[in-house]
């Protein structure tokens, strides 16, 4: 009878399918188009250009499960602990055609991702140079996958530390929820507080414990 419950849970969690992460990301052809690296003067074209950059960034981050980028566009955190982040191919520079995006245009692209598409968020709204969270999976979806897992496995009501949620796998998290960087996890948890699904226990200004309700 107990297994029946496990079964229903298994079939319900579509969150468990993990993509393969070893292959290098294949950049679209437009990444080799030299003018992509110059902000276009024609505004209609520029809009299209910003869309292309956004698609590229989202696909890239999803591929490597990168959850945040620095202001310069370098990966800050990834769920894939085997990746060497500083060795990933560069997003904003293409050495083979000797082109790169300048800082001004980078921040315009990020602004587009954040304000127009709502697929990214500044890590610190007051200090935009700290970089962005990239939500190739919407924040709400992260939250509900995590909550459903805790609920389905009967782990609501227990207090966990951020460390337990991010670094160990005592909680039996599906692969898609494992190894989330603590900065990203805290962002997810805060969104769940608003939904009334989580309580945070504060200690000296930091999160000491998390309880799913």
């Amino acid at each position, binding site marked *: 009878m107990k297994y029946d419950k496990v079964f229903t849970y298994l*079939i319900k969690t*579509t969150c468990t399918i993990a993509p393969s992460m070893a292959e290098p990301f294949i950049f679209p*052809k437009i990444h080799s188009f*030299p*003018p992509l690296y110059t902000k276009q003067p*024609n505004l209609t*074209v520029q809009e299209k250009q910003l869309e292309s950059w956004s698609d590229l960034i989202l696909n890239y981050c999803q591929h490597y499960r990168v959850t945040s980028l620095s202001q310069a566009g370098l990966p800050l955190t990834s769920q894939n602990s085997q990746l060497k982040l500083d060795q990933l191919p560069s997003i904003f520079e293409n050495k083979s055609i*000797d082109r790169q995006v300048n800082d001004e245009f980078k921040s315009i692209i990020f602004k587009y991702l954040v304000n127009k598409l709502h697929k990214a968020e500044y890590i610190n709204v007051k200090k935009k140079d700290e970089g962005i969270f990239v939500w190739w999976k919407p924040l709400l979806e992260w939250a509900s996958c995590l909550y459903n897992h805790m609920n389905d496995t009967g782990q609501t009501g227990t207090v966990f530390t951020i460390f337990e949620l991010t670094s160990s796998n005592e909680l*039996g998290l599906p692969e898609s929820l494992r190894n989330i960087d603590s900065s990203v996890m805290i962002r997810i948890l805060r969104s769940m507080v608003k939904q009334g699904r989580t309580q945070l226990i504060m200690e000296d200004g930091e999160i000491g414990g998390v309880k799913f309700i």
Partner: protein
Amino acid sequence: MLLRYNREAYLELGRLINERQSSQLSTQLSVLQSAIVNFSVDHRETIRVNSEFRTKFTRLCQQVGIDPVALLIHSLGAGISDGVDKPQEYYTILLLRIVEVCQETRAMNGGLISLKELRSQLNTTSGTSVLELKVTDNDVTKCIEVLKELGNGYEIMQSNNSSWLRFSSITGGSSKDGGISVDQRNIYEMCLFTGGFVTYRLLHDNYGWDVTRCATIIEEMIMEGLLWLDTQGLKGEWQYWEPSWISN
């Protein structure tokens, strides 16, 4: 320990079940889709004549993920070999689709698309791999002839053994007569030659244009989305790229 082992095993089992179910479902879906494609060819007359039937059939197509317009093009053209005239309706509907593709890709290519790219766009927009259209260059050419009768704005260009469809926007823009000017054509030819771009220097050295002439035509083409600016050329020279490069 045992619990952990069980959990892993069940996770694996669950994944397998998910995978199998989803692959069975997608097989069933493609069987249904091919049945609908065949049906549309066998009964194309009924579908054409009976409007109530057609409405229901169209709704069914949409529900199982087949683009009804693509299906119509397929059924009207089925079994007629290239070079032989197809029903007038075939061209009319295909024409509609060509205009759609042109409008959709305009922001990206500025209104110039190679026939090869256009055909591949037309042939793959059906929504399912079961239905692959086989639109030919002949078909496209016929359609463009009809379009021309409806007014200027669409024109086939030949350059370096490849054919291109050039279209100006419905709202006009600055190409007054809707066609391409001689200067624009020269720029396109230079782009094909260099592999995608022109510079003031190239235009000056090859066509003898002075700076003003270069600036006027390039400015105009940038505003129409026909050229993209690149400020990082060799030694910082500005290059102007022709955007259909991306899709070719």
